[in-house]
Each structure stands twice: as structure tokens, then as C-alpha cells.
């Protein structure tokens, strides 16, 4: 595997931050995780990957038997990129190490959206990075079908350190679905991932990420997006399976006029799961807009659902909606919506609600002939339904399918 040659300053800054605890979330002891794993063989044909692995990846929306409805595919197992391919002109999909070899301008994007010394996790990724994906749409090219990527953890007690770079060049359109999952239903593991998005002028990116971990896995994604004039960044995140600990707080910066960012999150915390998940948008250019929507359900785990919008330019508009549902007595949901405005003429709003299923609604549906179980299931299903503006119908259907597949366990 090629080593990514970062400027010395990145390494130095990373070394200085290697013991720096994150601002949020439980502190993870990195020393208990292995930094390396055996290499996996490269597969030219992803359908030849073991059936069990393919089934696991399919749960997160990654389809390997028939990739005709994908513009490109990237699969990484542990630290090894095992497959990358494209099916559409104007789209590039490869391991970040390859991209660094291919393009000398990669340093313009490397740690430019996320600070390398954010915390010990970003530092660890810089010092021990193991690839990740590079996805790029060339100027004016639009993906017909989404590009899919899977980061797959197979080795117990491995720390998977990935650094992803996504670039949508001017006036391009890129739809991405990523699944992050683990082969084992019980082995401990750690997933550390940096994702840096660069959405150029007039470009549109939809990014749908489905996580399916196990009760012993800890996850620390570090994501940031930079959105230029008239650009769109639409991020959907779904976590409905158990995880030990997940903390992430992606940030999108609108630096160009009329840039638009939408974050949608669907979170389920089962007993033993601890989630601290938020989205932050900085509206730094005139006319920028954002909407942050999160739906959180606990069946016994703990969720901190954050959201923050900052309005720092004229005529910006943002809305934050955070709703939580406590299905069982032991769970906790802490909604923390934040709005910050730094000048007149901005329009920011939020609504937050945390509660149980309203008995009045259950009884209303029962009066229509649904029994209590059906009425409750209907309300939960409705709660998890987020109509996502701007998401292509194919992805919308796949996202809904992934949610519905997990709903059954929830009920």
C-alpha cells in the first residue's frame, strides 16, 4: 500500500495532538486497539466477495452482486482497499493513497476542511492512516446512479483509520451511498474516519451514510464540508443498530453565496448504546440556507442529539428540528439545539421535542380499527419517515428500505 505523504506540518501537528481528548464523547483508549491487520486480496469482481460479507454490506445499502445501478464502487476491508471501479465517465473512485499518487494537488484538500489536530482521533488517522476513499465528479458531470462505498471491519480489536476525500467540481452532481459495518456481531473494534467534502460552485452532493455496527464497536467519524456558491450538500445519516459508543459532530461551512446544506439524521439507541450525534452549519455567505433534521429513538440507550446553526452573513436562513422518542423507561435523550446569529437580517429557528408516544395518537388510530401494536408501529414508522428534498428517488427508496428493515427489530 502506498503511503500518503503529508506535509511535515500535518505530522507534527498530529503528534502534538495524539493525547488530546475530544471535546465531546467518552474518551476511547486507543492503545487497546491494533493498528494493523492482514491485507485482504483485491477483487476485480466485487460479486466474488464472500456471500456473508456481501449480505452484511447489503444491510447498509451497498450492492455488490449487481452494480448496474451504481456509478462506481469502493470497498475497503479493514485497512485494505479490496475493490474500486467506475461505471460512468466523469466520475473518479479510488483509494486515497492512489489519489495522492495520481494528483499532486491533493495537498490542497488534505486536512483543509477538518483540522488534523482536532483531537487524538484525527491525529491518529494522520499518523496511522489506512486509506479510505477518494470520490470526485469532474466539472459538469452528473452521476446517473449513486457511487457506493463500504468501509468494512473484519478483524477484532482493530482500529480502522480512514481518510476520505470527496470533491464535486463546478456544476457537477454526485450522489453517494456509504455503508460502514462490521463482519462480526460481537467483536470489539474501533472505526475512525475523516471525511472532507469540497463542493465547488454550482455542484450538488447527496451523501447517504448507513452505519450498522455491533454492541462492542466504538465509532468516531470526523466530517466537514466546504460548500461554495450555489452549491448543495445534502447529508443523510442512519444508525439503527447497536453500537457501543458513537460521537460525531460534522460541520458544513457555506462559503459561497446561496449555498445550501441539509442534514438529516435517524438515530436509534438500543440498551447499552451511547450516541452523541449532531450537525453544525456555518452560514458564512449571503443567502446561504440550511435545514437540520434529526429523529432520535431510544429503546434503552442514551442519545445526545445536537444541532447548531450559525448565521454570519446577510439574508441567511436556517431551521433546526430535533425530535426524540423514548420508547422504554431506561433510555435518555438530550436534545441540544443551538442557534447563533452575528448580524441583523438573519432568520434562524429551531424546534425540539422529546417525549413518549402520545396516547392520544395511539387511541385515535385504534378508533380507526388498528390494534395497539399496529397503532404504535404506525406512529414509530411515521416518526422515522423523513421526506428528503433533493434525494434521487432510487436513493430515497433504498434509504426507506434500510430504515424499514431495521424497524422490525425496533418494534
Amino acid at each position: 500500500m502506498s503511503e500518503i505523504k503529508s506535509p511535515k506540518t500535518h505530522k507534527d501537528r498530529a503528534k502534538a495532538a495524539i493525547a488530546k481528548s475530544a471535546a465531546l464523547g467518552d474518551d476511547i483508549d486507543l492503545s487497546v486497539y491494533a493498528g494493523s491487520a492482514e491485507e485482504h486480496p483485491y477483487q476485480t469482481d466485487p460479486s466474488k466477495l464472500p456471500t456473508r460479507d456481501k449480505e452484511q454490506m447489503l444491510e447498509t445499502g451497498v450492492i455488490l452482486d449487481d452494480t448496474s445501478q451504481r456509478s462506481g464502487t469502493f470497498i475497503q476491508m479493514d485497512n485494505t482497499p479490496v475493490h474500486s471501479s467506475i461505471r460512468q465517465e466523469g466520475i473518479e473512485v479510488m483509494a486515497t493513497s492512489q489519489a495522492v499518487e495520481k494528483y499532486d494537488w491533493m495537498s490542497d484538500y488534505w486536512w483543509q476542511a477538518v483540522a488534523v489536530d482536532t483531537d487524538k482521533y484525527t491525529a491518529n488517522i494522520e499518523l496511522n492512516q489506512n486509506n479510505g476513499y477518494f470520490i470526485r465528479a469532474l466539472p459538469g458531470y452528473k452521476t446517473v446512479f449513486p457511487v457506493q462505498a463500504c468501509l468494512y471491519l473484519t478483524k477484532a480489536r482493530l482500529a480502522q483509520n480512514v481518510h476520505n476525500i470527496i470533491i464535486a467540481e463546478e456544476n457537477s452532481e454526485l450522489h453517494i451511498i456509504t455503508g460502514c459495518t462490521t463482519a462480526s456481531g460481537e467483536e470489539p473494534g474501533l472505526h475512525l474516519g475523516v471525511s472532507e467534502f469540497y463542493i465547488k460552485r454550482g455542484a450538488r452532493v447527496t451523501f447517504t451514510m448507513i452505519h450498522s455496527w455491533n454492541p462492542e464497536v466504538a465509532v468516531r467519524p470526523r466530517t466537514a464540508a466546504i460548500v461554495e456558491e450555489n452549491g448543495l450538500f445534502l447529508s443523510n445519516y442512519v444508525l439503527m443498530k447497536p453500537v457501543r459508543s458513537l460521537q460525531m459532530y460534522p460541520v458544513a461551512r457555506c462559503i459561497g453565496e446561496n449555498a445550501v446544506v441539509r442534514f438529516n439524521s435517524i438515530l436509534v439507541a438500543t440498551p447499552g448504546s451511547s450516541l452523541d450525534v449532531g450537525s453544525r452549519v456555518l452560514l458564512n455567505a449571503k443567502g446561504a440556507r440550511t435545514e437540520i433534521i434529526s429523529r432520535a429513538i431510544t429503546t434503552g440507550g442514551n442519545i445526545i442529539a445536537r444541532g447548531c446553526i450559525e448565521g454570519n452573513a446577510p439574508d441567511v436562513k436556517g431551521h433546526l428540528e430535533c425530535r426524540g422518542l423514548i420508547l422504554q423507561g431506561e433510555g435518555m435523550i438530550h436534545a441540544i439545539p443551538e442557534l447563533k446569529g452575528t448580524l441583523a437580517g438573519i432568520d434562524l429557528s429551531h424546534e425540539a421535542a422529546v417525549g413518549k408516544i402520545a396516547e392520544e395518537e395511539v387511541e385515535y388510530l385504534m378508533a380507526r380499527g388498528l390494534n395497539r401494536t399496529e397503532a404504535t408501529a404506525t406512529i414509530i414508522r411515521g416518526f422515522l419517515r423523513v421526506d428528503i428534498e433533493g434525494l434521487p428517488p432510487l436513493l430515497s427508496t433504498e434509504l426507506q428500505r434500510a430504515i424499514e428493515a431495521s424497524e422490525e427489530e425496533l418494534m
Partner: protein
Amino acid sequence: MLEIKHLTVAIEGKKILHDINLTIRTGETHALFGPNGSGKTTLLMAIMGFPKYQVIKGSIIFKGKDITRLPLDERAHLGIGMSFQRPPVVRGVKTRDLVAACLRGRETEESIEQLAERADLADFMDREINYGFSGGEIKRSELMQVLAQKPELTLLDEPESGVDLVNIALIGELINKLLDKGCHIRARKCMGLIITHTGHILDYVNARTGYVMVEGRISCGGDPHEILATIRAKGYEECIKCMMENVPSE
């Protein structure tokens, strides 16, 4: 047939209805008048079977079966439907999906689209139930859902409140469809009990009998138009006075 015998209902231990007796025969529609807070909605909620409305005495017999202790959904399956005055918003659940649920397992000559068309709600089917609906839209949506259920007994709680004059005719049309008013009374299989505060709906829907409820008791019964004329002329004060003179001691 619906028979209510000596029904006493309490909410959180407080008696709201006292010794109510009422019979609605197959094919009949009855109207219930009364001032705000007199217990009209409580009676409908108790017949529908909402758990908060506790029957502490008496019985409710529907189609010859004692349903006094029957759960809400089983009463719906047995053929009781209700149009609510202020139904809750159910976020995320599309109106279309609830209408589909109402149709489940029932033979119907109308599809979801036809029902939506009939209620002038074709553009509302993919919206969340009652979310952002106007007063008239809520009432039409309620009636559309109940039409999908095809109940034999429909309980209508102030179907005209919050509805403008243009829409009230459509509301009347939907209720007449629901209550099988197109058929001769002998062939009619549906019954209705309508709560009306203003009586406007009776310009569109015929009711055979009317009652006045005051302070949880049915104070009198008779021709609904005559009762309404009296209420309009003298107000409910006359009904209260009349009832106070005739109230039985408990």
C-alpha cells in the same frame, strides 16, 4: 341497533354523565344538542370506548352485544366509527396510509383515490394526518376516514364546527353518504349520532330525533327542528331550568 341503558360515566373519578338512556334503531340518525361542557363529547367517547371515559354504571349494547367493556379497536371492527371534533396531528403518518388502514379487510366500492376525490382531498393524501389542515379540511379528512371504515354506527362530533358555508354542503353530502341517506329508511343499514352546537348541519342532514344534554343528563327529546327552534329562541337557559325541575335525586 344501539341501546344505552342507565349509563354513568366518569373521567378520573369525576362523574360527567348520569344515567343516560338512548336507543338508536338501524337506519336512524339522532342529534344531540347541548351547551359547551354538558357532556356530549363524553357520551360519544364512551360509546367509542376511549379508556379515559370510565363506565361506572349501565351498559352499551350494539347489534345485540354488550360492548361496555370492549376495547376501542374491537368496537371499530364491530362497526362503530367516529368523526372527531379535534383529532390529533400524527406526524410522519400520511393521510393516505391511514385511509388504507381504515379500508383494510373491508369490502368497499371506492378506492383511496375515489374517497379522496369525494372529500375534495386529493392534494392532501400525502400530507401528514391533520398537520397544517384547516378546520374544514380536518372535518373532511375525518369523514373520509370513516367512509373508508364503512361503520354501521357513526358518531359525529360537531362536524360543522370551523367549516365555512361553502364547505358545509360538502360535509353534509359526505355524512349523507356515510349514513346511507340515499336509501329508504327500511333498507338503510347505517345509524348516526350527531353532536351539533349550532344545528347548522341539520339543514343538510336529516335527523329523526333530537335530544338536549345538560349537565350530563338528557333533559328532553323530540323533533330535532322543534328543539333547535326552542334553543334558538330561548337559549339553553330554558333547558337548564327545565332539567333542574325534573332532575331525579341520586
